[in-house]
């Protein structure tokens, strides 16, 4: 079952914001970096993203890829 797309934001009393996207398909979650910066009048100082693939019926093939993504 597909997770409903959501964004969870936590705003601390020091004014710092942490954000996490959930259930967004593909690399669409990256669009929300700019959207959140505009929405909050803020700049991103840390970012990390982890793949969370929805699994279907399958052959087991352990494979881990690591790559660096640099957004312009």
């Amino acid at each position, binding site marked *: 079952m*597909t997770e409903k797309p*959501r*964004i*969870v*934001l*936590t*705003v*601390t*009393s*020091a*004014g*710092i*914001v*942490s*954000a*996490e*996207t*959930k*259930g*967004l*398909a*593909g690399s*669409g*979650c*990256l*669009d929300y*970096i700019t959207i*959140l*910066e*505009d*929405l*909050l*009048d803020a*700049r*991103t*100082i*840390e*970012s*990390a*993203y*982890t*793949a*969370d*693939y929805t*699994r*279907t*019926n*399958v*052959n*087991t*093939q*352990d*494979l*881990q890829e*690591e790559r*660096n*993504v*640099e*957004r*312009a």
Partner: protein
Amino acid sequence: MHHPLTVVEDRSSFDVDDGTEGSATLSVSLILVPLAVATVAAVRGATASRDERGRVICQVQTRMRDEALLSAALRQTNAVVTADHQEIVASWDRVQATFQRGPDAVWSAHLTGDVDEQGAVDIVRAIDAEYGRQVQRAVLEQLRERAPAAGLRLESETVAEDASVRMVFAVEGRLS
């Protein structure tokens, strides 16, 4: 602006027998700092000097950038505040603080009166804590106001013991 991201894809059990690929969702976690805040560190140390009348002046660099939020924070500390765009003066019973903008638009505080360097740092820390609450309030208001136009619907809002506010938005916009 560059956002270096490290991606770790766990593709265990991902290849499908019938040749179709599994659907994928990704999560990004971010730390954002509002433009009203210059750095995450609240207050650096104080330096003391004397003015032309021989009074000790303690200077403390702050992380605060927003004039209106700083003035509001000062009023919350029961200061009498006068402000123009170049200078904010806050007066308490025995201490006065003059805030001036640096070249990076960040305010630095110059404290005079019954205060030493440590006292100056403590006072600016207290102002900074109130400033943080002002920024939090402004960010929350901005989110409530602007999120619908970005296709985000507020589903829940909860306040934690440490006074941080957690908001969950459903993504309903064009990018979902």
